[in-house]
Each structure stands twice: as structure tokens, then as C-alpha cells.
């Protein structure tokens, strides 16, 4: 479909290299990098090393890794990187729930320091005072941001923090002699899937509260769900709909009255920094994803980190070690006899922690509030404009404001044209955009999730809106273009039929060769 002159849409084409799979680049004998030889004296004293190995443990055939010269390896991965659309390059507002915002380059520079990257976790504490100080101060920042009393930085992601919360809940009830009986965790359908899944890993039965017509979780259903079997409530607020549950303090009160603990999934807290806190809403625990709200990059899916905080009553259960400060020196405290133990080796994803520290230091209290307010303003601006697009809607609480994101629906467009949200997402890629649907199950039909954060200018938001408008219009006028998309992205429609077929799926190149044979050159 022709792009009108006044549109901000780009005549985009993503880099497409038709790059080989790396094994196809192998040429026998080529080397990508050389390893130094041990010093002659060492060789003279100990020989080749390998012959000193227990014979039954020596590898007979070398691993069949490819053999490729250095520049070709570089070129290969650079080409793959060009075939990837990072947030630095696009207007990455189409990945709702994930808070894809600007990741300041200065923080990358700081994290690249050898004073960070070349630290071993078991160095003498006197030689890592800077690292410990950053961890300690970040803990203090989060205490203020949440109102809770103590944070651990050990959790490697939001899901991991949920697992850790479930571990603390279990420990808490065990210490009170109720570990066996309290075997249920309550969550809501618009909370992240991991609130259910990671809690289930700790042996809990999951009760999922659904929403009322206004999109809010059903408080009557909660009242019915709680009992002396309730271990806890894990909930987000605002939920994935972007609607803040005004009765949240009542929710936590109901669960407390039943004897349960309340864990606040604040993986995404971007819209409420400095506006409202976990403490006042009655939570015993909360966690923040540093790779979402606190400006650290997502790295294609990690490294990540979640700061998990608790009230003073639960501090003794936190994973060890805690970083402490005695007024002159920082140190690691393992003396928590009732601790759940550990959830990760060592202390946490330090490069992520360092970047989040720098991000907060660049904004301060007023800056964090400005982040929240502008993120919410941007979201409501998009809400107004998107719901004006024919075929798009924002189910629940129509006409009201939302916090940091909205779960929209293309259901009307689908009914009119037969075009699905997945097909629209594929077509958006042709303009250099990403659009995500939603977690499963699709409660909102033909869903799409948009979260603009504070990072994008009004002009960029308008450009993205033009993309949505254009594709919706195309769905009506030339649906084939949308159905067969993408056309100008990296690859064409993928044959997904093999992915669920055990005789055909191939998770590695060697599995592919075994099942499908070597492809022609």
C-alpha cells in the first residue's frame, strides 16, 4: 500500500545478509585465535600435560567445532547483529510489560572498567570495597523507593525473584509450624505467568483470580480463595492491562487476615516511581527488575537482575550473603541461620547492578518521579490515539486513564478483515517496528501490548502510531500484503511446522544434519 506523503513511515528495509549457519563457513585448518604456548621450562618440567591425564578421561576425537579465520567470524556475528533490531535502533514501544527504555551508554562505559569486569567474587573484602559499596547503596535506594526494609540483589531475573519470594513464604510458614498446611499461592490472570509458574516450583498449588468486567481482579473471588491453606498472594499492580487496582490495600489485608504473606511483583514499576510504594499498599515483599524499570539493557534476554526487598520480619530468611556496612567498611554477612540459603552462585549480576546504580544516580528522587509521570503521560497519549484507530480497542475501563502500559485488542479488525494480531506484528516489522501480542492465555482477544516508557519523543510516538494506522488500513485494503508479511525484514514467513515435531525439530546444527541431511552448498 502506498505510503501517503504526510506519513512519518520510513521506506525501511532491514539488513538481510542471507548469512550462513556458522558451521557452513568452516574451512579445515583455518584458525580464529591462537592460544599461547606454555613457557619452555614448564614444558620441560611437566611435558605435554595431556599424557598425564587418566587415560580413560582423555577426549579421543576433537569437538567438531567449525574452523574459521578471525575476520570471517567477526563478519558473521556482525551480520547477525545487523539482522537484529535492538532498542537503540527502533522505537521499541511495542513490547508491553517489558519497559524497553533507553540504556545509557555511559553506564556501559562504566561497567566495562577492569575495576568491575576483572573482579573475582572471592577476593579479599578489602579489595572489593567499591563493588560492595555500590551494592549496599543500591539496597538503600530500593528501601526508599519501596518503603521496605532490606534488599537482596542475588536474584537473576524477575521470575527468579518470584521463586525466591516463594522460598521465603515457605520458610516463614515452616518456622511457624504451618509449612505443610499452607500450600496455596494466589495470583491473578493479568499477573506475569511466572507468578504462577515459579511459585509452583516450590511445590505450591496455584489459585488464579480472574478479572471482573472492569478488568480489575475480583475481590470477592479473593475472599473465597483465602483460607488456612493460603501461603501467600503474588500480584502485580498495575497489572498487564495498565490498570491500577485501587483496592490493593484491601487485597493485602484479606490475605494477611488469612495468615498469608503478600509479594508484590514490581518487575515493571516504571509508572509509579515516587508515586506509590509497596509498603503503604501492605506488602511484605516486592521486587524490581533492574533490566526493566532501572535502565539496564535486556541483552537479547539477559543478563538481568531483580532487587528483592522484604519487611524487617522477613530479613532473616533472605538468601546469604547480605552486604553490610559498619560505618567504615563494607562486608558480606553469611550469619543468617534461618536463611533460605542461596538462589544464585556468589552475589548477583554485578554488571547489571552497577548500571542500575548509575541510572538512579543520574536521576535522583525528582528524576524518578519525572520518569514515571512522563511514561504515564506518553502511555495515555498513545491510548487516546490508538483507540482512535479503526479496529483497535482497549478492553476494560474504556475512556479512563491507564498507568504505564495498555493491553489493546485488534478483535474488531480481525472480525472485519480476518487479519490476526500476529500478522499485524509481522507487517510492522516491514517498517522497522516490533509489536508484541501478549502472554498466554489470550484473555484479551487478538491482543497487543504497548508500553512507551519515558524514553521516546512525541515525534517518535507519532511515527509508531502511523505504523499501526497504516497496517490497520492495509488489512482492509490489501490484506494479502499483511497476511504474507514480512516482506522487508530479515527472513520471510518461517515454516514453523517442524518445531513441534520430534522427528523433525532441530535445536542444534548436528541434530539438523542427522535428521535432514547436509543442505546443498
Amino acid at each position, binding site marked *: 500500500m502506498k505510503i501517503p506523503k504526510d506519513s512519518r513511515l520510513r521506506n525501511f528495509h532491514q539488513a538481510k545478509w542471507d548469512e550462513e549457519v556458522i558451521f557452513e563457513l568452516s574451512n579445515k585448518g583455518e584458525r580464529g*585465535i591462537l*592460544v599461547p604456548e606454555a613457557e619452555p621450562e614448564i614444558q620441560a618440567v611437566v611435558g605435554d*600435560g595431556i599424557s598425564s591425564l*587418566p587415560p580413560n*578421561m*582423555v*577426549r579421543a576425537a576433537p*569437538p567438531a*567445532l567449525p574452523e*574459521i579465520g*578471525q575476520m570471517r567470524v*567477526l563478519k558473521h*556475528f*556482525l551480520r547477525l*547483529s545487523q*539482522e*537484529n533490531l*535492538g532498542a537503540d535502533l527502533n522505537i521499541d514501544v511495542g513490547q508491553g510489560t517489558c519497559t*524497553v527504555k533507553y540504556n545509557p551508554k555511559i553506564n556501559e562505559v*562504566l561497567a566495562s572498567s*577492569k575495576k*568491575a569486569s*576483572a*573482579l573475582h*567474587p*572471592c*577476593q579479599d573484602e578489602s579489595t572489593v570495597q*567499591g*563493588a560492595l559499596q555500590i551494592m549496599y547503596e543500591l539496597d538503600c*535506594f530500593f528501601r526508599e523507593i519501596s518503603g521496605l526494609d532490606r534488599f537482596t540483589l542475588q536474584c537473576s531475573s*524477575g521470575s527468579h525473584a518470584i521463586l525466591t519470594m516463594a522460598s521465603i513464604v515457605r520458610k516463614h510458614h515452616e518456622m511457624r509450624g504451618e*509449612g505443610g498446611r499452607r500450600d496455596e499461592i494466589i495470583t491473578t490472570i493479568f499477573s506475569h505467568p511466572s507468578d504462577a*509458574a515459579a511459585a509452583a*516450583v516450590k511445590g505450591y498449588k496455584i489459585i488464579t483470580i480472574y478479572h471482573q468486567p472492569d478488568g480489575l481482579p475480583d475481590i470477592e473471588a479473593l475472599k473465597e480463595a483465602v483460607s488456612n491453606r493460603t501461603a501467600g498472594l503474588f500480584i502485580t499492580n498495575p497489572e498487564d492491562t495498565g490498570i*491500577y487496582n*485501587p483496592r490493593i490495600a484491601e487485597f493485602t489485608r484479606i490475605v494477611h487476615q488469612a495468615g498469608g504473606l503478600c509479594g508484590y511483583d514490581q518487575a515493571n514499576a516504571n509508572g509509579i516511581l515516587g508515586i506509590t510504594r509497596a509498603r503503604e499498599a501492605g506488602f511484605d515483599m516486592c521486587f524490581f527488575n533492574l533490566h526493566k524499570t532501572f535502565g539496564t539493557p535486556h*541483552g*537479547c*534476554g*539477559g543478563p538481568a537482575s531483580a532487587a528483592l526487598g522484604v519487611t524487617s520480619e522477613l530479613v532473616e530468611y533472605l538468601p*546469604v550473603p547480605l552486604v553490610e556496612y559498619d560505618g567504615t567498611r563494607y562486608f558480606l554477612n553469611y550469619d543468617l541461620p534461618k536463611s533460605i540459603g542461596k*538462589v544464585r*552462585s556468589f552475589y548477583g*549480576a554485578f554488571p547489571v547492578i552497577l548500571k542500575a546504580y548509575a541510572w538512579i544516580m543520574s536521576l535522583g*528522587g*525528582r*528524576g524518578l*518521579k519525572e520518569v514515571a509521570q512522563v511514561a504515564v503521560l506518553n502511555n495515555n497519549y498513545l491510548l487516546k490515539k490508538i483507540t482512535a484507530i479503526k479496529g483497535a480497542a482497549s478492553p476494560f475501563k474504556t475512556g479512563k*486513564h491507564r*498507568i504505564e502500559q495498555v493491553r489493546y485488542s485488534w478483535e474488531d479488525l480481525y472480525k472485519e478483515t480476518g487479519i490476526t494480531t500476529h500478522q499485524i506484528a509481522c507487517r510492522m516489522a516491514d517498517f522497522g517496528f*516490533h509489536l508484541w501480542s501478549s502472554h498466554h492465555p489470550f484473555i484479551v482477544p487478538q491482543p497487543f501490548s504497548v508500553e512507551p516508557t519515558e524514553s521516546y519523543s512525541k515525534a517518535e510516538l507519532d511515527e509508531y502510531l502511523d505504523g499501526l494506522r497504516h497496517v490497520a488500513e492495509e488489512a482492509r485494503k490489501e490484506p494479502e500484503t499483511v497476511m504474507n508479511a514480512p516482506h522487508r*525484514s*530479515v*527472513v520471510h514467513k518461517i*515454516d514453523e511446522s517442524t*518445531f513441534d515435531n520430534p522427528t523433525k*525439530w*532441530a*535445536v542444534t546444527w548436528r*541434530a539438523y544434519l542427522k535428521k535432514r541431511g547436509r543442505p546443498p552448498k
Partner: protein
Amino acid sequence: MDPKKSFVHPYIPNSVPEVKEMMLREVGVKDADELYEDIPEELRMKRELRLPRPLLSELELKRHVERILAKNTSCEELVSFLGGGCAQHYVPALCDEISHRAEFLTAYAGEPYEDAGRFQALFEYESLMAEILDFDVVNVPTYDWGQAASTSIRMAGRITKRPKVLVADTLSPDRLAVIRNYCQPVLEIELVGHDPKTGLLRLDDLRSRLTPDVAAVYFENPSYLGFIETQGQDIADLAHAKGSLSVVGVDPISLGVLKPPSQYGADIACGDIQGLGNHMYFGGALGGFIATRDEEKFVMEYPSRLFGIARTAAEGEWGFGDVAYSRTSFDGREKGKEFVGTAAALYGISAAVYLSLMGPQGMRDLGRHILQKSRYAVKRLTEIAGVGLRFESSPFKEFVLDFSKTGKSVAEINRSLLAHGLFGGKDLTGEFAELRNCALYCVTEMVTQADIDRLVAALKECLKAGGGER
């Protein structure tokens, strides 16, 4: 900062007052506060967050953070003999070049179309790891070895439907604590003893504990205490005879020279990719892998993303996507296998670059180099009066030195080494009752002969000084 003055932050383009005004008008409110109408008054913060004064200019921020980091002394400045689950290996320039690429660094969860690059890079990561592990399935990385071991064990529990797992008692307490928490209350963890002389798993103890309720036996190779476990096949045979699985944790950097677990009967292998092109970062740049045979009963138990290769509508074009997505918690919430989410993908991409550069010869050369260095270190260090090698088994890159005959504690020795610019081995006192006054030394390609000779000289000097706490 004057609270009345407008606040335009470089990270927030729409903080420009005129733009904000225009957008507020567009939305139909006077003030951003109106957008929070759903948040009850009593839950609203009445004051500004009390955080340190912001360092608004990039220059001030840089100065501030660098001043704090300057308090650290790194393993680039001193010489490190520390290992135990995180070790200094050489990171090729290309690994940093690629992992710093904005397209990878700032991407997240795009579709296999506009994010084809990350799908392919991580498919290649799986494929390259599969070659060194000699297994046909490898996951997109999870958090770390502890998580990979925990999930491998939980997978074994689901596959066999049995409630107990036997674990070698030579595991690091750190990793064991992670496994224990992750398995409790679903799987019971029972420890299997080791031979006090060799460190090797006691097969008689294993035999007596291998009851029909055992899902798996988990051990590591090389072990946390450095020695190479030579009885891998015996352990696997014993386990298999009782319908249990063999799960083996492995340091992948050893696999240029050491036999991979799949070749001595392992059903599941796991470990960490930190050493493969990733910096140490205070133990913060870890990534866990899990590998198995390509059998449905194994594949369907992975909680992780598994990226597969496929063809597209265009002739000859490769495409990539999620294999058996329905098993994940993204699809099935609590009915999925454990849970999945953001983990350590970027470290997987570094590892893919690393293994592509190293090739088969590079991995072999590196393995040999490390063996030579560690053997030289063992020889020189154990020539020092009172210093002994605690286990007589063959080590790879790490080994336990026993200082109990020197009259000095490891803490005391390490303090003295630090004054010589050396990070001595990790103190095992307190970790294992029998390893009081023992230390775990790690020798990689990063230390030179001169460094080892310096360590020997410094130790001799420190031990000669006599006295000391015990």
C-alpha cells in the same frame, strides 16, 4: 536543584515543558497527577523520594562512579589464583566487540523476523556447545551453573517420577545451597561420600544409597575441589542399573582435552559458560547450560527456550524459532515446566563467538596449556616444606593445597600473599570439616610461569616467617 525550575533530563525527551503541556492537553488533563486517578490518596507518596542528589551531567556521574570503582583492586592489577566456580580466562577482543553491539545489547523479545539475528546467534550457541558436549540438545542459557544443575535435577525427577537425588558431597557449598533451595520440598537431596585420599566418589556408598526411589546421581567433573572424576562410566552404569539417571556438571573449558560426560554415560550435562568469553564481574557474568540427547522425553522437560532451525517461504533461506514452546511457562503458566524468562542470553552469544574463534584446535591447545600450567604449579608449590597436595587424583585447572603442616592459617597466608600482589587460593576452611587450613588454587592461561614462581617465592617467605594463628 530548585524544585520550581523545570526539569529536562537527557533520558526523558518529553520532559520539555512545552511538549508536556501539549501532550497533557491532547490527553485532556491539566496535570500528570490526574492520570493517577485510580491510586487512592492514602497510597500516594506525599513527599519526594529521599535519594542522593542526582549527578545530572554525564561527566559528574562518570567521576562519581569511577571514584567508587577505584576502591577495587582487580585481577588485572594483581595476579589471581582464585577459582571455585568463576575464573579468569582470556576474553578474545571479538567477544567484547560482539556483545557490545547495540543491536544485541539492547534487544529483548522481538519476533524471529526483525530479531532473526539473535535467534540465529543463540541457535549457533546451542550448536557449538553441542559439539564440545557431544549432545544433540542444548538450551538457551539459564542464570548459572547452580540453576542449570538444579533444573537438570528437577528434569530427572520428572522423567523418572522419583523423589530423591544423590549428590556428590564434594560440591561447592555455594552450589549445593542453590540446589537444595530449588529442590525443596519436591525432591530430597542426599549426599554421597568421597574417598578421603583421592576425592573420588565412593562407589560402595553410592551402591548402598541407590534405592529404587532415586531419580538421579549428580556429580561434577572436574569437581569443585579440582580433581578429575575418573569413575564417570561406573557411576552411570550403577545409576542406570537402578533406573536412575546420571547428571554431570562440567567445566566446558576442559572439553578440548577431557572426555565430555555424554561419553561416559551421562544423560544430562550442565555447567557454566562464564569461562567461554565472559569476564568475571565479581561472579556476576555467569550463564548456565543444560544438554541432553535429542529424545522427546528429555526435550519436553526443559523449562528453557530452545531455538530451532527451519526453512522459510523463500528458497534456501534459514529461519529460526521456538521448539516445543508449549512446554514453557510462557505458554502454560504453572502447568509449564518450571519457569522461563530473562536469563543470560548475551553471555551465550559471547560464548558462541568464543567457540567459533577457538575451533577444535584452539580448545585442545587451551586445555593442554592449562594442564601444563596447573601441573607446573602443583609441582613447584608442593616442593615447599609443609605444603601438600590434598588429593592425589589428577587435577585440571584447580587443586587443593593443604597448609596444615605450615603452622599458618590460610587466612594469614592469603593476607601475606596479598601484600605481595597475589590473590592466593580460596580458603576452604569452614566449607568442609576435613579441609581446615586447605585452599583451592586455580591456574589458568592467564598466569605466567613468572607469576607461579612469584607465588612460590612469596609463600616460602611467608611460611619462613613462622608463628601464626591456628
